[in-house]
């Protein structure tokens, strides 16, 4: 399809503004741009149809099953969008006075308090805009705390080899050296290797739990003890929080700091890649280091307070506020019962699907999983030549978004599936049927999977060519 720049014509456009009602000011010649930017020249009809066509060439949760592991692609409730669209929330300047923004401050306070309770933490900041941004923020708290204690020799962050790439990248951005520890054969942290890795240079540990193979690390208390005994702090990557809400709490497992993803666990939409929100929570001793401002309540008036030894700002204002509005609306809907039921149903859906598939596919770890499970397609690849990639592309022709491919790195030919709690049993049964049919296809007609997908707007793109000769913008001839 054409780009918007290839549509329309000179002179087309919308009538948006009235004529100027004050004397026109001219910009000095030397300060003026030499030529106008080559933006689209289109009418409103053309804009409307262009983006409808783009929407038709996109796939969201509302188009069908989206078991993208580690991304918690649950349904995004509409009432949350209504709330986030209220004029009293959208049309508020971030630098209005506290007196005229009591509603916004209440949103921040109520959401922070709820997140503290769910996670067993003492304080939260909503300033980080995404999960990775939360990791960065959490590690900064650790860095600032250690610096204040004069422990500048603690320069190493321990990260399991099953971690998301953002963990080591965040540690690097915070000036830490990354120590990778291998996972044991059970997919969990090898506590012996961890004991050998810690020392008086240990700043902390970053751990995702349930981990990236979908398992709850049974040794989690021992792990946090090892780190604390060595003088380090424990960071909980809450990417997988959807498995444990109301069941157990990171704060009770010995973690000092955590980030959660509102755009995963708390149902806010992903928007094709963002905006997200990655609030960071911590225990009381780290609260003075939180970034931005926290909301305090006194005599039923809310005010913004800069924590006493704040690391500064990690974002310009109060975080992705309208995302926080959606998350609060979600938590209010669920309440204490609904939150727990949500995690129960998420784990049930994952295990149901895992058990229905385990006779057809090799599970990387054949045991009870949490909210997601990882299939290992190595044997299929060996026997049929069809890889995890081929299998994923095959799913596209059945209208299913494939599971996360080739992650975690410790499993070869990995497909990580996270059905989430908002899927019906019928959807799961249908997906199991399709997965199994594809497995059969891999044996009987592997070529058809190599050639998949066939029914999508484009076939497999040439990614190598894209990277070798980058075309990253449109240029008119």
């Amino acid at each position: 399809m054409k780009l918007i720049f290839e549509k329309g014509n000179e002179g087309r456009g919308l009538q948006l503004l009235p004529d100027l009602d004050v004397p026109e000011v001219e910009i000095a010649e030397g300060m003026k741009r030499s030529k106008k930017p080559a933006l689209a020249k289109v009418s409103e009809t053309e804009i409307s149809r262009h983006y409808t066509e783009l929407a038709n060439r996109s796939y969201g949760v509302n188009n069908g099953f989206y078991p993208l592991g580690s991304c918690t692609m649950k349904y995004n409730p509409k009432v949350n969008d209504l709330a986030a669209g209220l004029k009293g929330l959208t049309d508020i300047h971030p630098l209005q006075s506290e007196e005229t923004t009591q509603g916004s401050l209440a949103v921040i306070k109520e959401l922070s308090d709820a997140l503290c309770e769910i996670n067993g933490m003492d304080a939260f900041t909503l300033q980080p805009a995404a999960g990775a941004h939360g990791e960065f923020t959490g590690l900064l708290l650790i860095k600032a705390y250690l610096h204040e204690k004069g422990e500048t020799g603690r320069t190493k962050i321990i990260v399991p080899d099953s971690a998301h790439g953002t963990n080591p990248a965040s540690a690097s951005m915070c000036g830490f050296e990354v120590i990778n520890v291998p996972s044991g054969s059970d997919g969990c942290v090898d506590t012996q290797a961890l004991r050998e890795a810690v020392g008086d240079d240990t700043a902390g540990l970053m751990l995702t739990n349930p981990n990236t193979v979908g398992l709850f690390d049974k040794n989690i208390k021992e792990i946090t003890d090892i780190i604390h005994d060595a003088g380090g702090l424990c960071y909980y990557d809450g990417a997988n929080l959807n498995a444990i809400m109301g069941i157990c709490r990171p704060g009770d497992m010995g973690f000092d700091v955590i980030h959660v993803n509102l755009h995963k666990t708390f149902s806010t939409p992903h928007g094709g890649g963002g905006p997200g929100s990655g609030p960071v929570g911590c225990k009381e001793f780290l609260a003075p280091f939180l970034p931005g401002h926290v909301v305090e309540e006194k005599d039923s008036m809310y005010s913004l307070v800069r924590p006493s030894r704040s690391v500064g700002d990690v974002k310009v204002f109060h975080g992705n506020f309208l995302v926080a509005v959606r998350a609060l609306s979600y938590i209010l809907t669920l309440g204490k019962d609904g939150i727990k039921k949500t995690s129960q149903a998420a784990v049930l859906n994952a295990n149901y699907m895992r058990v229905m598939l385990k006779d057809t596919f090799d599970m990387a770890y054949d045991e009870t999983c949490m909210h997601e499970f990882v299939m290992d397609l190595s044997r299929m690849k060996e026997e049929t030549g069809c890889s995890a990639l081929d299998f994923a592309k095959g799913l596209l022709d059945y209208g299913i978004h494939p599971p996360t491919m080739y992650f975690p790195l410790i499993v070869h030919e990995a497909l990580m599936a996270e059905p989430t709690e908002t899927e019906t049993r019928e959807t799961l049964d249908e997906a199991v049927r399709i997965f199994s049919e594809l497995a059969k296809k891999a044996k009987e007609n592997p070529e058809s999977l190599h050639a998949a997908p066939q029914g999508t707007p484009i076939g497999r793109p040439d990614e190598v060519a894209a990277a070798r000769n980058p075309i990253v913008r449109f240029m008119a001839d």
Partner: protein
Amino acid sequence: MGTYIPNTEKEQEKMLEAAGYKDFEDLFSCIPEGLIYKKELNLPEGKSEMQVLCEMEGLAEKNKVMRHVFRGAGAYNHYIPAIVKSVVSKEEFITAYTPYQAEISQGILQSIFEYQTDICELTGMDVANASVYDAGTAAAEAVNMCRDRKHSGCLVSEAVLPQVSGVIKTYCFAGDTPYQTIPLKDGVTDTEELEQLLSENSGTACVYIQNPNYFGLFEDVEKIAQITHEHGAKLVVGVNPISLGIVKTPGESGADIAVGDGQPLGLPLGFGGPYIGFMACRKELMRNLPGRIVGQTEDSEGQKAFVLTLQAREQHIRREKAGSNICSNEALCALTAGVYLAAVGADGLEKTALHCMSKAAYLKNALEKIGFSPVFDRPFFHEFVTECPADASLISAEMEQRGYLTGLPIDNNRLLWCATEKNTKDEIDGMITVLKEVLAK
């Protein structure tokens, strides 16, 4: 009460049985007993949709929407064309994840490719990424982009939005990057001081300025670029995208990287977010850009296709060696900016910029007549600073009660004002009348 779980309790029981579990306790038995949270969460009972909406409306009503906004300082009150909201409400865009599966994500990928093109056109740069979180993180990431083995420090003008320089400073603390500020002269970056600082700090990786700057004034970007480059450092310029409808681009002025906040391009004030940080640079720096970049290629049939590209820069491949940790960005806001720019076009953007400038000039004159004398006598865009004949915070508070968000008090007796195309002459005149009443009190 409310959950979004479709399966009934009965159905769940059957599923538990089919999967070989007695009950939920059995299902969760892999969690060590001692860690199970035995209490109920100390949260309210769940509520019905009607009750939730009512409660959220109650919170919204506790805010006061300002009918008349004359405040900017990093968040700008612009007209949002009707088509923008309509397009960005499409569920296929809202409910999709990052476009990992290109075959079913061509729509989102193309929208980002178009956005990247828009940003290159606005800034006069060669390459743009798919966005970062906001102006502050874009600035901080740009500073990180300039570091190499021999250069690490950054010099930041004092005429930068304080929250943006604050974020740069935080990232510098994180990365152990030396951070220094450049003093001002008459409200703009002092080029002599800049030259001095660069001579004293040979390891400086970059200089960061904002144009128009925090006080609304135009910087001499070309001269600053020249000085910066003479000392082997790179120039990062923070810009307001609306101003680029008319103002000389960072590319034309010799900057190496242009960043800014795309909020003025169709995003509501939203108490500060979500906004969108845009980043664009010269092609030599392309592989240092953080975050997603969409590229054009072909599919197996030779059809035009878009993919996430140059991924060898990113965290999921390079892990601790990646230049940035960014994963999620602000894609839906990039879409918003793209639709906004398609709706206004180059002529509309120029008109908007001219309206902003003209209304600000009119506002400045009107204010001067009632005793708010301008602090600087230099060319400015749509923001400017005045003295205040009474306590600035007091004036601001009094006016807020009357539905007017005045200029931002930047100290006891100075206000930073802003006007946009949304402020009519009548509205400005009306504000002046009310301001006079408040002063007379």
